[in-house]
């Protein structure tokens, strides 16, 4: 019983939950989005700040304000660690990798070099009801990023 639970609630997840990184809403930002998990009401407001780097856009900052369960809060914190400071291309491929892990029904082997603390969510993929929790912030980030790029191009 506890072992099943422990595979979900990894130490890393509980740590991020108790001490989330990059919390709060900060300026400057190009896009702000509000996402909701309609099943449970968990919510996140998230801002993205991109700057131009030598080889394309770089994720300068991601700031947020959110209410949610341990999984969604920890996932938000881990996500900011993983994308802030990265070239956008690289951040987007981390996003892809995380998505693949979550949709893998617990059968995908996570790559620690890419996902770092994110590998702790491998266990979540076995709990279909919680996958949405783990993805809430990632989806919000993707959405805000897309909006930022569209605003630039348009």
């Amino acid at each position, binding site marked *: *019983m506890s072992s099943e639970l422990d595979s979900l*609630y990894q130490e890393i997840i509980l740590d991020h939950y108790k001490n989330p990184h990059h919390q709060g809403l900060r300026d400057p930002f190009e896009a702000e989005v509000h996402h909701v998990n309609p099943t449970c*009401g*968990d919510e996140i407001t998230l801002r993205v700040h991109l700057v131009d780097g030598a080889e394309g856009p770089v994720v300068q900052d991601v700031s947020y304000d959110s209410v949610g*369960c341990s*999984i*969604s809060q920890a996932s938000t914190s881990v996500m900011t660690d993983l994308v802030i400071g990265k070239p956008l291309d690289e951040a987007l491929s981390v996003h892809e990798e995380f998505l693949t892990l979550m949709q893998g029904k617990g059968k995908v082997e996570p790559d620690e070099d890419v996902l770092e603390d994110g590998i702790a969510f491998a266990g979540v993929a076995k709990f279909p009801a*919680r996958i949405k929790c783990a993805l809430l912030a990632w989806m919000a980030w993707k959405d805000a990023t897309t909006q930022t790029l569209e605003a630039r191009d348009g």
Partner: protein
Amino acid sequence: MEGLLPQLEVVRKDFPILTRTTPDGSPLVYLDSANTSQKPQCVIDAMVDHLERHNANVARAMHLLGAEATEAFEGGRDKVAAFLGAPSRDEVVLTKNASEALNLLANTLAWPGVHQVGAGDVVVTTEMEHHSNIVPWQLLTQRTGAELQWFGITDDGLLDLSRIDELLTERTKVVTLTWVSNMLGTVNPVAEIPRRAHEVGALVFVDASQAAPQLPIDLAAMPVEERPDALVFTGHKTVGPTGIGVLWARADLLEALPPFLGGGEMIETVRMERSTYASAPYKFEAGTPPIVEAVGLGAALEYLSDLGMESVERHERTITAYALEGLQSVPGLRVLGPTDAAGRGGAIAFELDGVHPHDIAQVLDSRGVAVRAGHHCARPAHERFGVQSSTRMSSYLYTTPAEIDALVEGLEYTRSYFTLG
């Protein structure tokens, strides 16, 4: 324990799913009956017998199976009418769920007819409704230019009647409210509100989705001025199948409302230029109705009547009292809604300091205890109490005190796992 259903262990044997265990062998403790109830064997058997031996389309078929299927289907309607004490069986419209029944009312009021709702009219709902009794009225009022107003909730989780005179005026065309809250458990004054609303000429609709499973209902016995004009409930919460709901409405209201969905079965004569419609209830049952579902629902309501709705109610009250006591013994736990079992239904929503409802539900689930976490389709009521979501346990006629003990132990464990762990 005094007040439980007699022979509870025998009753539990009627429900095959209650023998299920979780992957690691814990027995299932199902405390999510306000979400959907489990089904007794007799309901399943009635559906199987129908599908294996009597399946045909109804009304329009003249052959042996058609006659049997029609009798079975209309027999389901008779059983619904009997269960509600409906003045007439023709006042019973079978829908797909309670939500459709509420939308049927809201939707038909948008179109020309004596009850049409328009600019300047007021529709009144309450802050403790299920989303299915809020959103249809938002759509109606937004689309017609009418105004939506609502009763608030007191700090104790009761309907706040202090503004009743402002809410019920001659502008008020519709008052719609839940009999029993699916989140707070509150039992609303469903005699007083219809009486007051009828005085100003408003129609009154009662959402009995949580009441029908738990309380005896006898429409014919209600004084006319206190009887709602329409009442809805849903099959899957009264030990029946999904795919079927009930709209009861008084005959002349059904006659006065314009059609909702158009199609087969609801017509009298169809010409390309225009059609005339059948009389109620058929006018509101376009297309092939939920036939096997009506058979299942009929068996379900007979099952409940055989147990006796008074006994079911007493059982629910007893378990609810025991649960309220047990829950409040957990440190850091706060019950949302009335804490006295006497005037309350069996859904108990609560918060536990420092642990998110998802995480509570998850830990409980790992011990085989099934509860619901989230806003339970009652987000405004959560907002009223300043919480974003809650955990909800809900018992039913098959719930035992031991299952409540398992919940309380699970909550103690959750605390230790999360806040102290």
